């Protein structure tokens, strides 16, 4: 598609357009290209800077940090801060590092992702193919509810969870994530199932398949791509959550983000910036890996997720 004549923009914003007559030879170093690539490279550098600073700082020793600046590359590379962040850093009285938070986050994220997706996919399927009276009303409430600030609902949910004995436990938090993931996921699945041709559904009905039969034998296999999108969306979202973690769990079950914040922003003791940065990278690593591995699917996920707001 690198056809010069089709290119929509021979002039960048600052440059006047020369009358295009016939195919123009493409110069590699035109002013337009220098402007575009220059700007993009500059902006990219700005976006990458914090990542570089994090990594560089985490590989330095404290003496080196005190004499230098944060942009200087590490002279003597040490992995001690990473070890300390993972297994020794203190939050309050506990000094077993971020590893505890990591495993808590795993124990929170895995069931939350599974349950929220199972619930929402069946729900979306029912809404798309088995519409019943009143379904639209509930669905509208669900979508509008996605805009309600969480702060309005957090306290009553504390009471509900306390009543059923799950307040402070991992499972309480799993329920909360399932609830607040529901609007976007249900929308995602409903829209996907609606786009599957109606004839397929009718044919299965004629063949005598029921609600669950059609779901497991036809819809589920066809919806695999959207399941991947949903998983990416939920894993990053739940892993990155802070507000629900800090409210609905206890220090023993704090997810990684909460523990990270407690380690870095604790007031006691000398600030160990290298350990803090190592801990920060460790916490950001899971979503970053997902982001770079999943690539286009991630973009698709957030684009579809974003449409709901």
């Amino acid at each position: 598609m690198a056809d010069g004549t089709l290119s929509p923009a021979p002039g960048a914003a600052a440059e006047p357009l020369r009358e295009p007559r016939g195919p123009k030879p493409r110069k590699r170093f035109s002013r337009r290209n220098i402007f575009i690539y220059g700007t993009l490279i500059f902006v990219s550098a700005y976006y990458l800077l914090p990542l570089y600073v994090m990594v560089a700082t985490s590989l330095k020793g404290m003496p080196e940090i005190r004499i230098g600046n944060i942009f200087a590359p590490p002279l003597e590379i040490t992995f001690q801060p990473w070890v300390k962040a993972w297994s020794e850093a203190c939050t309050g009285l506990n000094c077993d590092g971020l590893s505890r938070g990591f495993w808590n986050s795993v124990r929170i994220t895995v069931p939350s992702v599974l349950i929220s997706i199972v619930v929402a996919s069946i729900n979306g399927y029912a809404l798309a193919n088995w519409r019943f009276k009143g379904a639209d009303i509930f669905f509208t409430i669900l979508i509008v509810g996605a805009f309600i600030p969480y702060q309005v609902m957090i306290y009553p949910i504390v009471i509900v969870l306390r009543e059923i004995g799950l307040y402070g436990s991992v499972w309480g938090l799993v329920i909360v994530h399932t609830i607040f993931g529901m609007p976007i996921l249900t929308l995602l699945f409903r829209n996907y199932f609606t786009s599957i041709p109606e004839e397929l559904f009718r044919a299965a009905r004629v063949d005598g398949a029921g609600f669950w039969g059609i779901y497991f034998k036809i819809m589920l296999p066809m919806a695999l791509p959207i399941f991947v999108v949903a998983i990416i969306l939920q894993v990053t979202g739940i892993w990155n959550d802070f507000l629900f973690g800090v409210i609905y769990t206890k220090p023993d079950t704090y997810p990684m983000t909460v523990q990270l914040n407690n380690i870095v922003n604790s007031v006691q003791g000398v600030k160990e910036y290298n350990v803090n940065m190592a801990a920060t990278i460790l916490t950001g690593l899971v979503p970053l890996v997902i982001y770079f591995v999943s690539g286009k699917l991630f973009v698709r996920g957030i684009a579809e997720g974003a449409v709901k707001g």
Partner: protein
Amino acid sequence: MSASVRPVQLFRNLNAKIAAIPMILTALVIFVGCSFWTIFYSFTNSKLLPKLKFVGIDQYERLWASNRWLISIENLAIYGFCTLVFSLLIGFLLAALLDQKIRFENTFRSILLYPFALSFIVTGLVWQWVLNPQFGIQKIVRDLGFESFTFDPLYNPDIVIYGVLIAGLWQGTGLIMCLMLAGIRGIDQEIWKAARIDGIKTWKTYVFIVIPMMRPIFITSLVIIASQIVRVYDLVVAQTGGGPGIASEVPAKYVYDFLFLNQNLGQGFAASTMMLVTVAIVIVPWAYLEFGRRKHG
């Protein structure tokens, strides 16, 4: 089916109804029930525990007389306005740049979007470090010879919210750029050709033809940004903790602190109800325009 007994309405399509139970419960109990519960109890003087002792609009009067709440609202207004303007502007400009049939488009897009994968906690902590006056940007410029250079937004109550803004924009503009790029790509190539034949300058085509055509994308972005702004909490907690003093407080933090730290539930409920009102002011006109119009048109 002419069965002698008319099937009970409730049991028709039973499986679908069972499948929808979680949704119905969430919609009714959480979104409707819990919201009304909070609004209801915001008119009581609940302290440590919710109590049904009504005090009228006392909590709201106290709220709006509180200096901390006023600062929170002011911060939210500044942060919100700047985030809206800059993410739309930067997001669109970057999308327009990426749209120029450039090489390495995917690489650039990955770089611009990766912060969005990071949590606000990570974002806040990184920028707390980059903006640290002792080791960060200020120190570097001073080392270059500008001894009196000062850039310490996180330690200056007057500008601390802009320090938070820098981090917030770094994290969020990538998403807006992606949406805008999808919007630009969605525009018919014929329009570009027509504009070129008419000799319209590229930037004019963008401003006068492309942007008006992207109205739905702009509105979607606007709603996304707006609903995220009201919730801003993690970022402030991680980056400044509301400080210095109370200079970077935001409403969401006010609610959290009053509900879970200060044990003044009534005040927290009143503040969260005000947040709900703020969102409603943004969302209701949008929903009306988007969905109300669609039905008539």
